[in-house]
């Protein structure tokens, strides 16, 4: 497995609380991505990073923010969690724009 660790693996939280998910890589890959996966929708891109402190929005970025202060860490924050953000969140890394992605094992987030 590519060296990607997502934490936590499971989290249950209440509506309105802030939540931070962490993605840590040991591969020194430049590109990092956060996707969410929901039944019937497939994987949808939330935010991505193309370098330290370089991030951009994906197709479903509302309600989410990210930070990347080191090459190896990419944080996803839900400022005020809502029930619609209940999902499985995957982090992915890539060496280059045209390169294949390696995915983490996912975080199951439930917002009650």
């Amino acid at each position: 497995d590519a060296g990607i660790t997502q934490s936590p693996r499971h989290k249950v939280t209440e509506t309105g609380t802030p939540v931070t998910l962490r993605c840590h890589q040991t591969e020194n890959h430049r590109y990092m991505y956060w996707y969410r996966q929901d039944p019937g929708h497939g994987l949808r891109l939330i935010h991505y990073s193309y370098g330290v402190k370089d991030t951009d929005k994906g197709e479903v970025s509302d309600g989410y923010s990210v930070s990347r202060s080191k090459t190896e860490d990419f944080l996803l924050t839900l400022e005020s969690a809502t029930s619609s953000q209940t999902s499985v969140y995957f982090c992915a890394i890539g060496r280059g724009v045209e390169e294949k992605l390696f995915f983490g094992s996912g975080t199951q987030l439930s917002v009650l």
Partner: protein
Amino acid sequence: EDQVTQSPEALRLQEGESSSLNCSYTVSGLRGLFWYRQDPGKGPEFLFTLYSAGEEKEKERLKATLTKKESFLHITAPKPEDSATYLCAVQAVGDYKLSFGAGTTVTVRA
């Protein structure tokens, strides 16, 4: 906007019964089409990248093909361990991201 549609949603096969999965796509300019496999509770795992119409890639019992509008993933003589969800994704020229389809869940019975 890039669009990826996979069919069927689910496929149940008997061991040894060959079949094909379809991925139809719309993209302004294709940089690459990707196939991934996803097992329950795990992240997707890369299978193939196809770049131009007519290209084919093979890996064990899987063969991926590409035309200008769609890609097929052929599973030849499947085994129960081929049971998984297969995801198709496209990347447009000049874009960082992949756009994924909803996937086809394949179940192979012994």
